[in-house]
């Protein structure tokens, strides 16, 4: 699904002044010490991305690898994404797939049933304390004269032609890493900036073609490291 940001109808104007100042909040919803004491084994849910991304498996693997490495270094036991992934696949087969063979439509009730039961089955089969999600998502952040800083990352965007100094808003991607308890309550949530999804073409910010996403391995790995670093 290579629709990129064109689907969002995004051609950002550059010369609107941003009014943005985010407070630095703790990524923990419980005290960090309690988190480390109570949640020692973390199961990873398969790496996911917003609908606008066609994320290659290799990228998902890189993100998982970086996050696993960091968690293990901090003394956590990590249950890999394949465990929940395999349960889901098995259940999807059991319900006969999500697509209605006649209409070709996705059966949302079956999808929801698999999602819910897979999590319950994971809790049933494995002894672990928390489940974590890794997701690539898009958001809008301020930019100043080709330089963008967000979620612990910074980047000088691709550009074509010269431009005067400017300030505006730009779409970027980030990796989110969130940890939930049994009751689906968020325990920890943090972001790592991945890459800009737009470039400057003379005096306009335009969407990059989707083929240009996920090309910089260093940025991908770094985004995962930033997201998990508060743990």
């Amino acid at each position, binding site marked *: 699904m290579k629709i990129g940001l064109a689907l969002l109808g995004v051609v950002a104007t550059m010369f609107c002044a941003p009014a943005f100042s985010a407070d630095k909040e703790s990524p923990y919803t419980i005290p960090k010490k309690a988190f480390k004491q109570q949640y020692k084994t973390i199961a990873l849910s398969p790496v996911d991305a917003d609908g606008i991304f066609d994320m290659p498996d290799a990228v998902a693997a890189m993100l998982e690898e970086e996050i696993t490495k960091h968690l293990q270094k901090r003394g956590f036991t990590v249950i890999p994404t394949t465990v929940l992934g395999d349960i889901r696949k098995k*259940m999807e087969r*059991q*319900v*006969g797939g999500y697509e209605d063979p006649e209409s070709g439509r996705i*059966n949302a*009730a*079956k999808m*929801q*049933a*698999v999602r*819910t*039961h897979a999590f*319950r089955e994971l*809790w*049933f089969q494995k002894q672990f304390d928390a489940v974590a999600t890794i997701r690539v998502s898009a958001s809008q952040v301020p930019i100043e004269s080709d330089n963008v800083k967000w979620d612990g990352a910074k980047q000088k965007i691709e550009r074509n032609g010269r431009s005067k100094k400017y300030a505006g808003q730009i779409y970027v991607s980030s990796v989110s890493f969130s940890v939930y308890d*049994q*009751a*689906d*309550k968020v325990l920890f949530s943090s972001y790592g900036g991945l890459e800009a999804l737009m470039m400057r073409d003379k005096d306009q910010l335009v969407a990059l073609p989707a083929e240009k996403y996920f090309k910089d391995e260093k940025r991908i790995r770094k985004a995962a490291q930033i997201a998990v670093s508060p743990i």
Partner: protein
Amino acid sequence: MKKLLAIAAIATSMLFAQATLAAKVQPLSKVKQIPEKADESNLWERASNHENRIRNSGRLVHNREMEAYLESLTERLLGDYLKHLGITPDFIIVREPTLSAWAYPYGTIAVHTGLLVRMDNEAQFAAILAHEISHFLQRHSYKEMSAEGRQSALGKGFGLLVGLAAAKETGTFDKGIMDAAGGFVTNLATSGYSKKNEYIADEEGLVLMANAGLSRDEALPAFQALAENEVYGAGDPRKMWSSHPRLKDRLSNLRKELKKAKRKKSHVPGKTPDPTEYYRGIAPALIINARLDMAEQKYGRAREALSKYLMVKPNDPEAHFLLGESHRRSKPLGPDFSASMASYDNALQADAAYADAYKEIGMAHRIQRNNGDARVALEKYLQLAPNAADAAIVRAYVEGL
């Protein structure tokens, strides 16, 4: 749905395009008809657009019985005003777990399900309602727009000021619903009436309560409950506006007003409220909001609402089942399943064919490795719901037992 006052007047008065702001805005009791002038019509039109956006957001609860109950409570509070103004109460009930209510300048009242269910009796809800009605009776939104309008000569935009005054809330706002209603409403969300007007509404609200024979003492816990918006991360929007009183200040003012009212010779203590009458009146909101709270992992709050619901509808299998779910979801792996199991059993007592209760009983037995009991319950589920979306998965569980 009828507006409280004839909104048709807008079109005519809009002909006078440039607003002349009222020098002194009189309360409804002293005017023959509103809107009086073009700028007030403009305010109404904006407010009406806002209301329409909320109505079209797909988040309204449509339940004639509940609306009728709330309208009858409004009629009681309005008392003699009803005849004087020749009006019909009108409510919109918004499916939102936060605690909020507001009055449009033409009198329509909007209320979140979260506020309805958090109130413990009719008098408590009436306290919030009377406060909002007072803003309407005093024409506070127009009054504030006029006051702000005088400043507009100093450079503020008239349109924005109209927006600010169109619908101001008691409690808090929900970002989702307000976003759905457009940028205009974001201005409303952070606004409130001025300290003076809030205090006037507090005072008049207590009078309306007393006239309706309701216990004014219930106003205090009602307003105190608004602080609970913090659990939804919503907080008190008035903190953002230094000229608007914080909830703490509002409560202390209310205490003073209550003391003052009790000292009067004419003071008659209101009726001790019977909570069941209120719960019966708002029953649909109780179950709807319990689902909303469950979706936000507010299981304790969901349980409170369900317990209120079951006081008046003790044989509702869905409420028993949801109560069980609120216990299970807060501790899905137990080790104590007794509370959820008891609720599932109650659901089956109320409806022996309630398939989901059998499924959850079976799943709880399976976690506890009570394979025999798990098999019996899960097979019963499959018998009752053979075509359920998860039937194949449950069948696989049974085969593995």
